[in-house]
């Protein structure tokens, strides 16, 4: 059986699909968050070096992962939109940006809460903190550009170009800041294995999946709003709005 992907490239059909899928992802995210936080706060052992304060990683690390991953997904949708001129791709990019910015902010905020007891300072000009801050600036810039352009087609493409050039720049910014200064602890999870306790790792991975599902659910809800707004002159939207 083959799925006809092109069918779901049409906003009208995707509107229904997103509406059916969003609650599932939303509930799965809520359930996994409860499990992940339970493991994080009650099951996982106390860290012998960092004490109880390390538990912020169950929110901090998934948020930091998602902040970078969502930017790449957004740039990917932007590239697909520019290459194939599909309206829905641009709408997905727009729907993802606020969630990405939110996770970036959460990662910075929880990082500050962790930094105070660990490093004795809310903020240090460490490489990863700084590149995360610049990532937040990139998100803000793209959203500001979208907000400033009234014509949706021009806005879509302009934002997509900025997202792409930002995506090329992100690794350069990351390494430039890395060489500039580094204080953050090295990555605990490496391809060759991990230096973490298994329960801690499980809790963190569950939280990461929860963050993933949350992002999908929120992006679907948001993309449905964007579709309704853009397609408000069409027949099917009038039917949807009458039924509601």
């Amino acid at each position, binding site marked *: 059986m083959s799925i006809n992907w092109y069918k779901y490239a049409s906003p009208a059909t995707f509107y229904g699909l997103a509406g059916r899928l969003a609650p599932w992802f939303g509930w799965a995210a809520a359930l996994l968050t409860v499990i992940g936080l339970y493991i994080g706060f009650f099951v996982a052992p106390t860290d012998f070096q960092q004490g109880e304060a390390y538990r912020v990683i169950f929110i901090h690390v998934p948020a930091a992962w998602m902040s970078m991953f969502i930017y790449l997904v957004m740039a990917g949708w932007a590239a697909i939109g520019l290459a194939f001129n599909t309206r829905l791709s641009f709408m997905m990019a727009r729907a993802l940006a606020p969630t990405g910015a939110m996770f970036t902010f959460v990662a910075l905020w929880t990082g500050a809460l962790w930094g105070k007891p660990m490093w004795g300072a809310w903020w240090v000009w460490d490489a990863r903190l700084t590149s995360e801050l610049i990532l937040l600036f990139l998100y803000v810039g*793209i959203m500001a550009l979208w907000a*400033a*352009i009234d014509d949706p087609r021009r806005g879509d*493409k*302009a934002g997509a170009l900025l997202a792409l050039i930002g995506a090329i720049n992100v690794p*350069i910014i990351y390494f*430039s800041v890395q060489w500039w200064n580094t204080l953050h602890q090295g990555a605990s999870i490496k391809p060759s294995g991990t230096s973490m306790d298994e329960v801690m790792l499980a809790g963190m991975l569950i939280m990461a999946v929860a963050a993933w599902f949350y992002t999908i659910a929120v992006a679907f809800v948001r993309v449905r709003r964007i579709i309704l707004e853009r397609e408000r002159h069409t027949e099917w939207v009038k039917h949807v709005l009458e039924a509601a």
Partner: protein
Amino acid sequence: MPAFLLTVIRRDLLLAARRRGDWLTAQFFFIMVVSLFPLGIGPEPELLKRIAPGVVWVAATLASLLSLPRLFADDHRDGSLEQMLLSPEPAVLLALGKAAAHWLIYGIPLLIVAPVLGIQFALPGEAIGVLVLSLALGTPILSLLGAVGAALTLGLRGGGVLLTLLILPLYVPALIFGAGAVDGMLAGTGAEANLSLLGAFFVMSLLVAPWVSAAALRVSME
């Protein structure tokens, strides 16, 4: 094709020569911002020497952003930009020529002023040399990336502030490598590493930015 590039550059230089006030504003902005720092921080030469590379580089990025909104705006307003895009010549060369002209008008005077500011900040001779070299490599990056922002924000409300918001994060590597080169010279670790990275970033911007600017111009003119 090179003839078209030269024509674009010559035209912008001619326009700038006819209206000196426009681009001198950005130069004096640069000088004033740099001169404000000693007033705010204090006149100790050791402290000034320490902050000089960063201050000069930050001021250079701000001065470039100040002059960038004008890059395409005048041609957009009188319709000549549309004609140039409709011509059979590639839009990439138009974007590249515009960025090159912007650098010649804004970057070169900045290189001439920078040594004087270095003396104000008590920088030793070889550090001033590295500062000028880093600006010579780095300011073309600012013009190339800035042209992308200028093309994206063409004709928008509050375009100037928006341009700053879009482009400043992209300037970060140039700022780090450029100021880092002078810092390395002052600290005795040498400037070669940072200058090489700055050069690499310049080559990459040269390869990517004109294409993106051209695409952005087409989007803005639709």
